[in-house]
Every structure is written in C-alpha cells, then in structure tokens.
C-alpha cells in the first residue's frame, strides 16, 4: 500500500508539472505566432511607407476583428502552416492568395483558390493593384487595406 501511495504521489506531482509545461508551451507558441504580426498603429505609423491589412469582420477564430497585419514584400494567405496569415476556415484553400510589393505598389493575386478572393466584392482572376481603403474578402474574413502614407489620423 505504501508503495502505491508513493507512486501516486509522484504521478500527481508529475501531472501538475506536465500541465505547467503544456501551458508554457502553448504560451510560447502563442507569443511566437503573435510576434509575426505587428500590433497597434503606434509602432507602425512611424514608417514612411508601408501597408497593412486590418481585419474588419471575421468568421475565422484565428483572426480577430480589429487585428492589424503588417504587409511585407510577400504576404501569403491560406490554410497551410507556411502562410504569413494563417486561416483555419474550411473555405480557405491551402495556398489561397498572396499580396506582393512591386513597383511601389501592393498587388493582390489569387492562387487558384476554390472559393475565390474578392476585392470590394468582385472576384479576382489576375493580380490587381490594391488601393487604400479596398476591402479584401477571403473565406468569410474581410480585411481592409490601409496604406500609411494616405492614412489621416
């Protein structure tokens, strides 16, 4: 009996620490995931040139309303884990779309997604230049395209 209780004691402690490790692991992955996105406009608006996507409405738990995503040279959107903007909705394709920076402008390109990519409600079939204020719709998520140089505080 004593031996059993001793074993239970150590298993109990082990369970608590496994729990703690698991929480820690989730917190770190959460931080890493969020670290890839730039939050708030205070930090970003200092740059003279650049753009971001603001989530206006979202059915996707991975993207919260009001979230701001900084756009780099290439931003990939889709369900695959390699994407810069990861989506979890089943309406999103694995490689859904990308936004590329070229000749001083941002272009949205659909990567042959099944459910399509929309700019201001119109489905995109070839790379389209994005203009400040455009709305981009992908798999139930609506983003607003914002270019800082045009932004009026």
């Amino acid at each position, binding site marked *: 009996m004593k031996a059993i209780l001793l074993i239970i004691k150590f298993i109990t*402690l082990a369970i608590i620490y496994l729990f703690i490790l698991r929480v820690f692991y989730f917190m770190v992955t959460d931080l890493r995931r969020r670290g890839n996105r730039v939050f708030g406009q205070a930090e970003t608006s200092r740059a003279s040139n650049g753009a971001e996507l603001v989530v206006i409405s979202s059915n996707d738990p991975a993207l919260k309303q009001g979230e701001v995503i900084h756009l780099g040279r290439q931003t990939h959107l889709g369900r695959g884990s390699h994407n810069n903007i990861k989506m979890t909705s089943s309406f999103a394709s694995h490689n859904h779309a990308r936004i590329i920076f070229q000749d001083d402008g941002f272009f949205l390109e659909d990567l042959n997604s099944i459910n399509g990519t929309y700019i201001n409600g119109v489905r995109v079939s070839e790379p389209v230049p994005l203009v400040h204020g455009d709305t981009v719709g992908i798999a139930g998520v609506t983003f607003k395209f914002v270019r800082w140089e045009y932004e009026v505080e």
Partner: protein
Amino acid sequence: MMYSGTRGHERALFIYVILFFWLGLFSLLGTGNGTVAAAGIKQSLLFGGVVSLGLITVHLLLEKWKFRGDQFLFPLTSMLSAAGLVMILRLKPDYAMRQFVWLFVGLAAFLVTVRLLQNYKRLEDYKYIYVLAALILLLGTILFGVEAGGARSWIDLGVARFQPSEIVKIILVIFLASYLEDKKEVLTVGTRNLWGIPVPGLQYVGPLLVMWGFSLVLLIFQKDLGTALIFFGTFLVMIYISTGRWSYVFFGSFLFGLGATACYFLFSHVRVRVAIWLNPWADIEGRGYQIIQSLFALGSGGAFGTGIGLGQPNLIPAVHTDFVFSAWSEETGLVGAIAILIIYCFIIYRGFRIALAAQTGFGALLAAGLTSLLAVQTLVIVGGVTKLLPLTGVTLPFVSYGGSSLVSSYIMLALLMRISAEG
C-alpha cells in the same frame, strides 16, 4: 474525427486538470483519511464525477458559444480549484460539501457573467453607482456584521454567511478603472517639485486620500488588515498603470505606512500581529501557535511532501481557509508549492497580456486592476503563512475554503475573459 473547435488549448489542458483531480481523490481513498474514506467509495466517486463533469460542461458551453476569450485562464483556475477541493476534502470533510456547492455557484456566476456581459465597456458608465453600492455594503457590514476570526467582515444571511468585502473588491476595481480612465490627464499633469522629488499638487492627491481613508476605515472598523492592504495595494498599482508616475506609489506607500504605524499604537490586535510576525517563538503555545504550526508544516513537507492525505496539516488552526497553502506544501512538498505559485504567475501573466491587448483604456485598466488584485491577495496570504509578511487573514484565491471568495474570484475571471474576447 478531428477536433475542429475554437478552444483547443483549453481542451488539451483540461485533460491534466481532470487527471490531477482523480489522482488526488484516489490518493485520499488510499490513505483512508478525510471524508473520502468515511463516506465510502461510491460517494466519493460520485463527487469526483460531478465535479469533473461540471468543469467539462463549462468548457463545452464556452465552445458552443464560440467564445473567443483567453484559453489559459480557465484551465489554470480549474487546476487551483481542483487542488482546493482535494485539500478541503482532506482537511475539513464537513466543509467539503459546502465548498462543492459554492464551486458550482461560482461556475454558474462565471458562465452568467460571460454570457450576459456582452459588452463590458458599458460597465464604465455607472461609476457613481458603484461607489454607492460599495459604501452600502461596507456600512452594512460594519453595522450588522458578525465577527469571525478577529475580523468583523461577514453578514449572516441565515442559510450562509456572506463576506461583502469580496464583492466590494470587484466593484472597487471597476470603479477605479473608469474613474482613472476619466481623470488620467489631470492626474498625470499636475506635479510640483519638492527637493527634486516630483510631488503631485494638492487637488490631485484627493483621490489618493479618499482611498487611504477608505482602507483605514476598513482597518479600524472591521479589523480586517488583509483586505485593507489588498484594497490599497491594488489602488496603487492601478494609479501607477494609468499615470505612469512613481510619485503616487511613493506618496501612497508613505501614507499607508503612516496609517499603519498609527494603527499599531492605537490597536492591540495590530500590535499582536506584528509581535507574532517578528518573533512567534516567544508565545509558542498561545498567539504564535498558528504560524509556528504552519512553519512546521512547511518544513516537514520537505522537497516532495508527505503525499496527499499523509501529513498532519490539521494541527494548524484555520488550516482550510487562510493556511491552505501550508497544508498543500506539507503534503506535496516544495515541488508542489512551487507548482501552485507558477500557476498563479501564469494567471497574472495572462492577465497583464489581456490588459496590453485591450482595445480601450478602460478595458486595459480593468484587466490590470483585476489581475493585480489577485496578485496582491496571493502575495499577502502566501507571504503571511510563510512568515514573510505579518499574517493577515485573507483567502488564497480559487483554493481556500470560502464561498464568497470563490464566487467573486470566478466573477473576476469572467470579467478578464470578457475583456480578452474583445481585445
């Protein structure tokens, strides 16, 4: 089938909570200690089953509502509550049933708050009603309160005793968040220099003085040192967060020190507390008995503890409320004690993360305030039982026996999760 919900982390973490709870129960069964053995195996299995089901139901409901709030807080606090239940069962079997009922009341309050408070920002609009409510509750306690354990902070409702200061704590944080958000600029701007130290002008010290007076009233009329300390500590943290000025913290601490010193000379029970803290060995059989038993419990636990149900924590008076941390440390050792503290650190970390991500100033202040309330309370009681600070009787949030404390802790949790869902 693949899991496709929105609260995957929460679900994954819950497995550990439930496992831990059952292991704790089995450990109690094995040792033949506490109610678990007395009530028979069948009943304890039923008890365990109902608690596990209750916790899982809450998780499933959150998932069903597609609630987007924080996924760490609820498993973390459930772990604490599970540890608390196991300890109550082990320490004061007669109270276990009541604590069990209170846990469900707490969970219900949590769900109701999460569900009904769709827009927490509206809380900002009723600040002066809060002051009124808080004053009524406190005055009621002072006038009609009953005394227990040297503090007059309970109101007897017939069926159950209720501790208004637990609810007042939350009301106060909500009030301070909306008040400070409103007056932030005024409070930040006006300072004068006095010997190189920035001192806020007199009109800005107003709220500080009011809060100070409020804490002192609590201290004097309710003899409730712990709660006064928690109120004032939380207030200082919040005013610092909203203004970013150390001068408030220095000035506030100075005022508190002044008040505490005055109380030391005016009231014998304060003197006793301090004397026990400085040297409990002088009166081992009398006033120092409790804290010394607590220290013995901590010491006899060693690194890995005696095992749940195998120590003698019942030697400590009031072990199930204020000293539950000592009992836990005796039976799970240093390793278990550190685990509990890490869990609190995680909760506090998440709380401040929520504050940082909140969309409005009010949300940020509210989240930070609630988190610091929890942090200060944990520090005060853990510090108290380990003789780091003078002992003041407050509960260990989520773990200690005590209905009002458990319910108010769960309401605080619900508020935090609500804020995180918007942020």
